[in-house]
């Protein structure tokens, strides 16, 4: 901003610090369509062989399209569940005079403040007890419940900023609480709904530990587990293949991010990852 100070020292420092990121991500794209001589730095030839996983199964691994479908089902179910519960629970906590509201809010905030991954051991045992171990439904339920504290908290924040006058007016005109919520308040918090929806979809899409621990079987594998099992397999150690799968995996994320960048800032500012 200030014209009185020179820019270049800052620019140089930032560029230097950003080199690892730029390197890693540009080679991520480059290496998927090229081969590099062992020990070489720049690619030497163009090839599409690293994308072969799209049309033939890699030995001992699940079909990529099945895995992608699983991931899609997983991420969208989590998104839908989180959205429907948070948008109603957030409203109730923000606007309704329900008993134990304070205590409930404190509970939600505490659950939000410490990542619930600490509960995974207990969850693992419970899922085995009730027979949802190794099913997609089991992971979806667990993932949703772990996302809910953040979701409810964010939606409550958005509802809090909607002026009371809108609802009062609606109620004066004889609408029910539900109508007021659905037709008057919900449109006001659309940015929150979009942000939370995209965020929970992306969290579901990127989640690794829950599906790996709670549903390790091949037929319910998701992309994160697929990629991790490729890397763990010593028989074909091929970074370019990993990267192609990785790029295939990350493309939807990057596209969604580009579209919803501004809206997502609301949530990333609140942060959930370390």
């Amino acid at each position, binding site marked *: *901003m*200030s014209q*009185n*100070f020179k*820019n270049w020292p*800052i*620019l140089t420092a*930032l560029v230097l*610090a950003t080199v*690892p*990121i*730029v*390197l*890693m991500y540009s*080679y*991520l794209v480059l290496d998927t369509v090229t081969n590099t001589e062992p*020990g*070489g*730095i720049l690619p030497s030839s163009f090839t599409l062989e690293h994308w072969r996983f799209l049309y033939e199964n890699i030995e001992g691994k699940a079909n990529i399209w099945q895995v992608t479908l699983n991931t899609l089902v997983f991420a969208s179910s989590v998104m839908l569940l989180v959205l429907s519960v948070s948008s109603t629970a957030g409203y109730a906590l923000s*606007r*309704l*005079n329900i008993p134990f509201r*304070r205590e409930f*809010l*404190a509970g939600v*905030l*505490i659950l939000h*403040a*410490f*990542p619930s*991954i*600490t*509960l*995974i*051991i207990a969850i*693992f045992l419970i899922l085995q007890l009730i027979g949802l171990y190794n099913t997609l439904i089991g992971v979806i339920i667990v993932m949703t419940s772990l996302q809910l504290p953040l979701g409810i908290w964010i939606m409550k924040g958005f509802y809090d900023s909607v002026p*009371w006058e809108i609802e*009062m007016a609606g109620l004066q005109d004889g609408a029910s609480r539900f109508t007021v919520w659905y037709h008057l308040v919900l449109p006001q918090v659309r940015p929150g709904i979009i942000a939370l929806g995209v965020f929970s979809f992306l969290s579901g899409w*990127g989640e*690794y*530990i829950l599906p790996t*621990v709670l549903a390790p079987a091949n037929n319910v594998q998701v*992309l*994160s587990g697929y*990629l991790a099992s490729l*890397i763990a397999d010593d028989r074909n150690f091929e*970074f370019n293949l*990993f990267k192609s799968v*990785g790029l295939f*995996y*990350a493309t939807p*994320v*990057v596209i969604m*991010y580009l579209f919803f*960048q501004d809206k997502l*800032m609301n949530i*990333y500012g609140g*942060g959930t*990852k*370390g």
Partner: protein
Amino acid sequence: MKAALAELQIELTPYQINTLSQAAYTGWVWTTDNFHKMTILPETKQILFNTIIYVTFTLLLFNVGFALVLAIATFYLPKGQAGIFRALWLLPRISPSVLYVVLWKWLTWDTGFLNAILNPLGVAQRNWMLDTTLNAWVFVVLINGFIGASMGMILFSSAITAIPKPLLYASEVDGANRWQQIRFIILPQLKWPILFVTVYQCLSLLTSFEQILLSTDGGPGSTTEVWALAAYHNALDNYWGNLQYGYGAALALVLVVIGVIMSFIFLRFFRFQELVRQPRIEQ
């Protein structure tokens, strides 16, 4: 069982007795054995020490330190350039963690990029991530720090933009250099965001182990094994195959207790009362 051992005059160390009683497990009993075990195992001291190193360095160097640098630096740059840097530094956060760690492995492993660059310069080929403890720590902190820096960056940036512009212009007219401007105008305004990020990220780092699991997996040896990862390893992914749910859960419970205590402090600091004001329609 201890009585039976005494009868047979077999002397075992406490650890062996512990192992034996676990092998002879017959049902559900109330016990404090797991917590006792936690206090006597030498590994506990090691993972406690590791956790402190991990949280302190990642937090100070990246989640707060580098986040501040990023926020202040991008504030001084023209809008376009600042946008590019912010977007680049958000990439690690939005990338799926498995892919993100693969990229770091590609950078550091035996056949990786660092070796490809350094080999011609006469540096012997090696696995930069795992060959020494120091290197492993450097990369554990880097991998987690690159993700963590973005949250602080966003929060600090918005706090800086909220500083009234006339304040900055006035300081420049009065001849303040950039360092003085940062030190006396920007940093004091960031006191609360910095405190918030420190507490919040401290809590997140304590319980996060996904990136470490994927990159060093606690190695080499167990030199980068942090508390949360130890809980995971003991209960769900044991190298020897004897899964110890109880012990793992006991380790996790310690984290939960710390988490709850810290979040109460957190609520004190960040004005919980205001957040739970009474709703107005029913009154």
